[in-house]
């Protein structure tokens, strides 16, 4: 079986500062080289805190940002990362803020028709039928088609965003914090809709979120990002229940959970390293209680820790003794 999505050494470096004649004075590595394989039909959850590079990664995957190094392969075929239109038909994107991803001066019909017309060159009647079909799938009424974005609530607008992504007929959807702008009661509606669509249309999801509980509820596998690198990746049932990387454990312990007493799980500050002056070793070493000299000088590789989980740590936490 070929993987739906394969990333090979994908990375992004941003130039910063502007010197004489606009030449950058320094650079920041937003995403360190990432290798990742997502099998067809899987939901891969990607979690991380602000500044971990998850949005940069997402934008590279859909061609909105050219990667600095590496390649993207979809169903065995390499994607031309220089051609943005090559992405549209194969991989689509659902935005975090549903309202601002809709042009305030266009009707929903115009928004929906764009991918059908420009990616698939459909005729008018064909487009009508397709839009009707998609709207039925995402539980939206057709009368919405002639309205403008400001008339919709966040939940409805996010359904429209999902409908637009489906219209491109891509098999992979990048969901970039798709529910974090929504209230919990609406969030559940959208998450369930996404689950239904996946079964019905044989989709592969990359679900990016900062909310551990949401990711755990929807993902098959979870990758934890810290400072631009994957620090742990494994089956969703294990990653937070039995974290191997100390950062994953910190995340899991920090999430407020009903019935758990309030504790500050970490004593060593919460500052990220300076991206202009990254540490030579593990980026988490300065905050880690288990860090040694080795951690501070060498970057750990993502290694198998047994039981299907991989963690980038020299001193991983013990696997739970069953």
């Amino acid at each position, binding site marked *: 079986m070929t993987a739906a999505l394969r990333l090979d050494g994908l990375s992004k470096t941003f130039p910063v500062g502007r010197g004489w004649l606009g030449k950058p004075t320094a650079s920041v590595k937003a995403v360190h080289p990432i290798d990742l394989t997502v099998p067809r039909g899987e939901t891969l959850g990607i979690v991380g805190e602000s500044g971990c590079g998850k949005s940069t990664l997402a934008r590279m995957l859909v061609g909105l940002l050219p990667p600095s190094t590496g390649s993207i392969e979809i169903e065995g075929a390499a994607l031309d990362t220089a051609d943005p239109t090559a992405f549209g038909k194969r991989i689509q994107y659902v935005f975090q803020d549903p309202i601002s991803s809709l042009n305030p001066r266009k009707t929903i019909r115009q928004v929906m028709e764009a991918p059908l017309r420009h990616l698939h060159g459909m005729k008018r009647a064909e487009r009508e039928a397709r839009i009707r079909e998609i709207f039925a799938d995402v539980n939206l009424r057709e009368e919405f088609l002639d309205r403008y974005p400001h008339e919709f609530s966040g939940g409805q607008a996010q359904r429209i965003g999902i409908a637009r992504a489906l219209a491109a007929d891509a098999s992979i959807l990048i969901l970039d914090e798709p529910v974090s702008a929504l209230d919990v009661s609406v969030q*559940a509606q959208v998450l369930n809709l996404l689950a239904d669509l996946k079964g019905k249309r044989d989709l592969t999801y990359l679900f990016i979120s900062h909310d551990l509980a949401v990711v755990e509820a929807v993902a098959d596998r979870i990758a934890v990002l810290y400072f631009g690198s994957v620090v742990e990746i494994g089956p969703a049932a294990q990653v937070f229940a039995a974290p191997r990387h100390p950062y994953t454990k910190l995340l899991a312990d920090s999430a407020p959970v009903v019935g758990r007493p309030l504790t500050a799980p970490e004593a060593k500050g919460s500052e990220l390293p300076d991206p202009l002056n990254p540490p030579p070793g593990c980026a988490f070493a300065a905050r880690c209680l288990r860090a040694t000299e080795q951690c501070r000088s060498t970057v750990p590789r993502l290694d198998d820790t047994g039981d299907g989980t991989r963690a980038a740590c020299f001193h991983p936490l013990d696997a739970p003794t069953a």
Partner: protein
Amino acid sequence: MKFLTLLARNRLALGGGVVMALVVLLALVTPILPLADPDVTDTARRFLPPFSEGALLGTDHLGRDLLSRLLWGTRLSLAVGFAAAISAATIGAAIGIVAGYFGGWLDNVVMRGVDMLMAFPYILLALAIVAALGPGLMNALIAVAAVNVPFFARNIRGITVGLAHREFVDAARLSGLSDTRIILSEVLPNVVPVIVIAMSTTVGWMILETAGLSFLGLGSQPPQADLGSMLGEARAALISHPHTSIVPGAMILIVVMSINLLGDGVRDALDPRLKSGALSRPRAATLVERKGPVPASEGRGLLEVQDLRTEFHVGPRTYRAVGGVSLHVEQGECLGIIGESGSGKSVTALSVMGLVASPPGVITGGAVRVEGEDMIGTPYRRLRDLRGRKVAYIFQDPLATLHPLYRVGDQLVEAIRAHRPIGRAEGRAKAIELLEAVRIPNAAKRISDYPHELSGGMRQRIGIAMALANDPDVIIADEPTTALDVTVQAQILSLLDDLRRSRGLAIVFITHDFGVVAQLCDRVAVMYAGRIVEEGPTASILETPCHPYTARLMACVPELGEGRRRLEAIPGLPPAVDKLPPGCAFADRCAKARAECRQGEIALSRAGPRAVRCLYPETPVMEAAQ
């Protein structure tokens, strides 16, 4: 159409529009009016005063009819002014859109050029252009248009850069649109209102400028005259025959003023922020228009809110954001208020010290008692005196809520100084002490940092330190951790918990997160559509929720450790608070709702510490209280 009605509502703009229309009409019909030839000189009839026989406005130094010259001049000035504005706007906007959209080296080169042109005081450039092309009205037009291109280009570029990074442009790109199509169908429609605004506010100025060049003798050449050159020619006789100057001068004033009035109206009608009242200056304290009697104090708690009602009046609509909320908090207690967006939880919190922005906010009823004293309708001086001293606030986004241009230490000292005089050294010592109290390492150094130099977690600690500055009795924390990462949130929450225990603070904690409530709050009030639907001790509510909304909301929330699953969802949406249904606001989304739920007021039924506003609760409140 909506735009026109908005424009017509603005009386000044309407007046300007009417005058403008009249002037334009006059200018259009000038050729068919029975006027004297504007260029025929008659030195025998020089300097006739206004209202002379055969010359309504008199004649000029060559005996030419002033009225005729005025109308022909107005025609010319208007044509030149509009032509300059339209060409400058078109060229400038095109440059701005292309530079802003494509960015990179193109943008760099274009904007350096624009900077270069803007490095001239504009008249120098205009003079240089006229010097090169030679005096003449057409050349003056070119000069005025040319010097304005950089202003339009820079303005439109700024807007375009903002738009090009908006998500809907990304979405269009993913839908397969080419750059040209994106510019035409996504960017341009959103830029046009800005161009129209910029144009309507500069047309008047362009008319002034071309008139100015003509005044200097560099524009229209005799015998042809626009308003500027009429004024220029009349200047020599200013003292002896002022009417020859006043006539064209007053005309310029009338034309430009009416255009400016109209332009302001256009700007206001096109600016979406003005429609929502977002550009109003919020008053020092929320407006109070209390209807009905003030509830008598029941003497509960340090802070007691009784039947509080806060509304937003936007145009003809009334949003009942808070529709009769009562709650109280005791010393050392933490009360959580939980609800979704639009439930009125933040407005309740801000109403306590009159911090709801007004307009549009109005407190229409109820009482807020701090140690028994009603805060609603109390004179501003008293309210200000208690703000920060008795009741302090911590807000959501710590970057936006700290002043960006003052050092954090100074902002801390200011909080103290607002209530008592404090010397420099003492202030500094106190600021350091406060930062240490919120566990900021290296406090002595941090006090001279600016907010942007600190991380989000550190900034929120500053926010907390500022709230503690005057040892208040009550702290109202409005979603203080929502903007923070989980690892930071955990630290802030445990800090707040420690402070409350060590200092005996009463905390009102506004949140949408059940996990946070469960960990921090002793009691919790659940809000829906502006009302409290359930209230009681946290543990008890989490165990046996009574209100169907509470129960279903809790079921919606995914919790860590429960694995992959399908979530419970609540169908539908919360009602809009300007169109609240009678009866229970949740009835439309509730599986247990019956006809009675949709009629009349549903009271909060109490049993012991628990209270619920429901006719058919999940668990009877009496049972739940045990």
